[in-house]
């Protein structure tokens, strides 16, 4: 993924600026995204006072909104004595983890850390990376579907992002530290997603995952059929679904050709070259065809996976993951061969016709056949206990502990395109860490402390709402 595509916020800024600039400047390439500046590194966005470290008062529901000191991102913490589930290199009993400046510095049986570091005793407890939800619709206040046209790739989820939504905090309290916020499934191509860290209580831009690539959500099957067929519009069938998509990509190809011609002419110094009209929808489709967006597809049935992959081949883009994908177990070898990941439910089934062949062994069968599998929520409820959902893969199919953990950490991180930054307890990764009271892959565990970028964002032992940086009010 190109390093210039750094953050959604920066992207939007550029889109806004481009609106002013478009009249005067001749963009050399239609999609604005290629020109965005890099976002500042985490922890340096805004100088902030150090957190007091004092627990927030138990102010119940009466308290007025009150912002606490912001985290600095420069904490030094050593977590000692717990059992670490590293995800990438197994269990470390009575292990140690050293966090500094928002990053994991060292993980092991013992670590070298200066005496100044704050020590957290995790004896008898369990330490995992922050959980990652590859499919969430929280914090969007119902603005999930622009269900007025089946192709709306120009919709930018950030425009609807409700960073004060308590869903973010509830998921955080369940150990989820990163989520991909996706559009709904009304449209064949719904729009562009947001990747957040669950830093509840901070300003909007502090929640955006720095450097996360841009994902776009597709959908197919019963949902678009119902939405548009119900209005006597296309698509009312699966044939219609894919016809609409092909038509859109065809137009995008022509649009790209116009711009390529124009750019070639201006490069040759042709002053009379006529600049094509910018079209946000076609810009976004062009970005898909140029491979600049991670394509996340809501689909259920085996035949749909095959059609989606065929269309991707036809137009030359790659699919990052099938979401839901309840029948991937039927064609897992083909999905694996295309390098498409699966973000699925552990055991949902039967709620609609295309979920009727869902089996709870889907995740493990697909994994054994080479598909990279994540267990995701698609639910403001499940996102609060992804650990239990992952544990079901140990029950249904006999996933190992590492495999089950990977499905809610490293694999969703890959689907979102941030696996180089989060998803395991490894030196150099972001210090997104959960301390659990019990073995996390069970019915019995709840998070006691949740760190994001080295700062403590949730602490069960605190009175009130368990949030060090924010009291009631949002």
């Amino acid at each position, binding site marked *: 993924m190109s390093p210039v595509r750094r953050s959604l916020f920066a992207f939007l800024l550029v889109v806004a600026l481009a609106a002013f600039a478009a009249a005067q400047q001749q963009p050399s390439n239609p999609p604005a995204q290629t020109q965005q500046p890099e976002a500042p590194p985490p922890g340096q966005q805004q100088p902030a006072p150090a957190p007091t470290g004092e627990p927030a008062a138990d102010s119940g529901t009466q308290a007025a909104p009150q912002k606490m000191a912001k985290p600095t991102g420069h904490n030094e913490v050593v977590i000692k004595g717990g059992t670490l589930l590293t995800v990438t290199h197994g269990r470390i009993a009575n292990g140690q983890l050293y966090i500094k400046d928002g990053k994991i510095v060292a993980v092991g049986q013992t670590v070298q850390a200066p005496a100044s570091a704050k020590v957290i005793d995790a004896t008898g407890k369990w330490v995992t990376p922050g959980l990652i939800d590859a499919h969430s619709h929280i914090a969007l206040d119902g603005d999930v579907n622009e269900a007025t046209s089946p192709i709306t790739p120009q919709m930018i989820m950030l425009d609807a992002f409700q960073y004060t939504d308590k869903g973010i905090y509830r998921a955080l*309290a369940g150990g989820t530290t990163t989520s991909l916020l996706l559009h709904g499934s009304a449209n064949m191509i719904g729009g562009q997603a947001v990747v957040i860290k669950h830093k509840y209580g901070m300003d909007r831009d502090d929640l955006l995952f720095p450097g996360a690539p841009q994902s776009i959500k597709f959908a197919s099957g019963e949902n678009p059929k119902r939405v548009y067929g119900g209005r006597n519009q296309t698509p009312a069938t699966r044939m219609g679904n894919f016809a609409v998509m092909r038509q859109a990509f065809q137009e995008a190809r022509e649009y790209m050709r116009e711009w390529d011609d124009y750019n070639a002419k201006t490069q040759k110094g042709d002053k009379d070259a006529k600049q094509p009209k910018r079209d946000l929808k076609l810009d976004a489709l062009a970005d898909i065809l140029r491979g600049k967006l991670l394509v996340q597809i809501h689909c259920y049935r085996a035949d749909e996976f095959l059609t989606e992959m065929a269309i991707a081949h036809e137009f030359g883009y790659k699919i990052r993951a099938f979401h839901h994908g309840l029948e991937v177990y039927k064609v897992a070898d083909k999905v694996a061969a295309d390098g498409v990941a699966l973000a699925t439910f552990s055991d949902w089934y039967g709620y609609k016709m295309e979920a009727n062949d869902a089996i709870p062994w889907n995740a493990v069968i697909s994994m054994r056949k080479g598909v990279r599998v994540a267990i995701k929520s698609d639910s403001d409820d499940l996102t609060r206990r992804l650990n239990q959902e992952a544990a079901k893969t140990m029950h249904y199919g006999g996933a190992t502990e590492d495999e089950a953990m990977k499905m809610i950490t490293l694999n969703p991180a890959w689907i979102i395109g941030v696996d180089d930054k989060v998803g395991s307890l490894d030196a150099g990764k972001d210090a997104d860490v959960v301390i659990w009271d019990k073995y996390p892959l069970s019915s019995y565990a709840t998070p006691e402390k949740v760190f994001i970028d080295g700062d403590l964002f949730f602490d069960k032992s605190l009175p009130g709402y368990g949030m060090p940086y924010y009291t009631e009010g949002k």
Partner: protein
Amino acid sequence: MLLSPAFAQKTQKPAGKPAPAKPALPPAPLTALKGGKVVTVSHGTIENGVVVMQDGKITAVGGPSTAIPRGARVIDATGMWVYPGLFDSETRLGLSEIQAVDMTNDSSEPSDEIMPHMHVYDAFHAETEHIPISRINGITNAIVAPGDDDTLPGQDSLIQLWGPSGEEMLIGKDIALAMNFSANQRRRRGSFENWKYPSTRMGLATQLRQTFLDALDYKRKWDDYNKPAEKKDGDKDKKDDKKTPPKRDLKLEALLPYLAGERPVVLDVQESTDLYTALALAREFKLRVILKGLTHAQINLDQIAATKLPVILGPIYEQPRDDERYDAVYKLPAELHRRGVKFAFASYDLYAVVQPRNLPYEAGYAVAWGLPWDEAMKAITLNAAEIWGVAGQLGSLDAGKTANVVVSNGDPLDVKTDVKHVFIAGREVPLESRQTRLRDEYMKR
């Protein structure tokens, strides 16, 4: 002769008594489970215990020296857990196959709010795929309730998740009356001019009150009619000559056993506001109440405890309200237990995709939030049987009870645990479903 309501009631099976099984199959085999960790629920846990089943009943439960009758099939349960079949206190099993496909749904009659004459057993589809799927995780009994679109949507049935036919699976017909007071019954959909009575909580309560009054009035009419005429002038009986029987009304008639306190009303209330109104209504008409829901009534838990009423809890996965802590709903079972309230878990919930097979994990999650393990186990076995009035047959491993027994390779409330054997009425049920068949078919490919 026309059946009078009084007569009709007499012909109904008493609440909770299982129907006599048809002699369609040979008797359930003699089986003994040996060496397992036996969680009796009623009288503690027996390490290296023995459970004997014969003719569909549990005949012995005890330690390693418990006698195993000659000829018994002996299953070595060493290293396993043995516990009573799990009891789900509300599901839609057999009423709905595929949520989004209307033609497969039989859970609600949305034309009227008052439908007490709807009987789950009339629609119960014993061949539903959801039953074998649920059985595989050890669910052996469930209350099937109608949907919650109406205030009085109908009467619940108690089912057993295996039987020679649907008839034998329905072991308690009309076991309770569902009554939804969760304010979503208000006919306030769409724009103002489309509202329909009752559109407010006031309307809801008034409509119910009027319905109960109508039923009592109906009963009075029949009682008058059935009263033997005063014998004067040496007449033998003047009744048949002079009186016209009142018109029968199945709707009002259905309410009579509940207004007589013979069977419980399951009062679904989510919030404090509704709780007070609904309980006042129940008191006014002397209804025997089982509370259900209470998900957002945390501030009234002491008052709930004071009523001494039993409670059915949905899964505790529902979101808290915005003014509630993140753990407000999670802690509900522990908080009720602390106050001495008897409760049982139901897998059914308005707001989440939940399934009976997840019932043990829902109980397990309550343990994560402070409920003692033994209490969580009880809330999906014996408490349920007691609340529904069938503790004589179900809910624990005790001699004389129906042989609904589960054997698993670990803690039943933990997600990782695999169920190895399920016995329903003494017969081992194959752990197969449409889902296992799909699994096996595609694993080979």
